[in-house]
């Protein structure tokens, strides 16, 4: 799948697939990096997601057909380059306890022990497919099939920053205090978003993440 469609008059949506797939997502990040590095006049920024790349542009500078031509060239170039080695970030995590309030109910729902849930969740290396929801929130996958959980029926109104959570085949970390409908299984003291810092975000789309069990 390879399509460029307008999203309004100031964004172009590149569709590379329509499902959550590691290979497709890697192509999204490769294309995003290529476009960000090429600094085409009129392109403001890109937003990589699971299977799409949204390109925001200035309609005073570029028309949709012009940006489409630019993007086609970049898509052809992206096919020939291989992804750069992703960054890997370790996240010390305290499972359960005060912030991982759903760990036990998750375990009983999945017919696993708490220790097994922790082991399975922390064993795998995850990829940040995309960021969104709140500033700095990473959508990561793919979760082991044994940990697939539905979202909460009633979302919580307040989830503290740093809370590690799972939903469906994904895992994430709440980046700021916000409402949340995912199952809360742990907490990290790492700060995901610090607006005062020179590098305000701990993560970037495409990074790899490894949870480290903290006792």
């Amino acid at each position, binding site marked *: 799948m390879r399509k460029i469609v307008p*999203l*309004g008059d100031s964004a172009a949506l590149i569709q590379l697939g329509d499902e959550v797939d590691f290979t497709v997502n890697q192509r999204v990040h490769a294309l995003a990096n290529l476009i960000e590095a090429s600094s085409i006049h009129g392109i*403001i*920024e890109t*937003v990589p*997601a699971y299977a799409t790349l949204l390109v*925001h542009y200035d*309609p005073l500078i570029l028309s949709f057909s012009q940006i489409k031509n630019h993007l086609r060239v970049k898509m052809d170039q992206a096919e020939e380059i291989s992804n750069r080695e992703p960054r890997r970030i370790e996240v010390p995590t305290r499972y359960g306890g005060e912030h991982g309030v759903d760990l036990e109910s998750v375990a009983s729902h999945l017919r696993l022990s708490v220790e097994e849930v922790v082991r399975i969740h922390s064993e795998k290396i995850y990829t940040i497919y*995309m960021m969104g929801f709140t500033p*700095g929130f990473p959508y990561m996958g793919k979760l082991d099939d044994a940990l697939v959980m539905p979202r909460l029926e009633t979302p919580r109104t307040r989830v503290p920053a740093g809370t590690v959570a799972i939903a469906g085949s994904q895992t994430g970390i709440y980046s700021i205090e916000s409402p949340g409908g995912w199952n809360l299984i742990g907490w990290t003291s790492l700060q995901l978003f610090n607006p005062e810092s020179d590098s305000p975000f701990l993560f970037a789309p495409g990074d790899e993440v490894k949870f480290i069990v903290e006792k």
Partner: protein
Amino acid sequence: MSLEVIEANGLATIQDSGRRGWRRFGVPVSGAMDILAFHAANSLADNSSNQAAIEIGLGDITFRALHDCVVAVTGVGYDLSIYIWDFPLWSSYYMRAGWTVRLNKLDSGMCAYLAIAGGIQIPQVLDSRSTYLRGRIGGFNGRQLQAGDVLKSGTPSHPLTELAARTLPEEARPVYTNNPVVDVIMGPQEKYFTPESTATFMSQEYTVSTTSDRMGYRLEGATLKHRGKTELISEGMTMGAIQVPSNGQPIVMMVDSPTTGGYPKIGTVIRADLPLLAQCVPNKSKIHFRKTTAAKAQKKYRELMSSLERIVEEEEQGN
């Protein structure tokens, strides 16, 4: 030069043309809801287009000038008075130290912009002075303005007397109405809806719900039906995008909207018309939608933006 907030009853925030470059990390653009009125206010004060101004909505506000300054006020839904005089919007005014400027909310329209010559000087957060309330960043300590806040301005481009008494003639302004026809570019998920629903959306009247805010305007009107799936895997979205969740009631994403979303988008409101929608009064304005193309939308936006530069110097002003 500076202004002090004397009384703030509504929602007044510092906004600029938006926070760009951070959407890939999940940071909304924020910035002015009515980008046309915002640009006009900066033009009238002869500020560069990215200077910060004050967005005023939902209630009255009063400022006092702590030094002589020039302010420009634009937008819809407010009466303006400076010192002892009432003045029209879409003009710039000289204010002597100690004078007050007051904006009183009317029943029509939603927000006004007050720019000060030299722009509001406040530290940037993630390259912008815009307030993002939910994220508590930008603007005045990440929050709305309150009585006692003092806003400092930068250096005006010219002597103050040359910047006052400038106006944008009515024919150069956006055409605001209580019952606007708003142009939409269809897609990317038009196919998720039944053809009858697309026809319904284009023919029926919608109102704005009272639960609307800077994040999104919820529309109330005929329910739209999905053909099948009511969700897709999340993808990037932008202001103006019309998401339709499973209840079939459309939500138009506004400036503080999340950067990504997973509901099908039947279309996107064009940039030139988003200000008209932003100025719609909940439960009152009646909105119709109409299909257009990206090329036509961009032409309309370019024409509107250049029209905002057609400022004239007035011969006389009340003071």
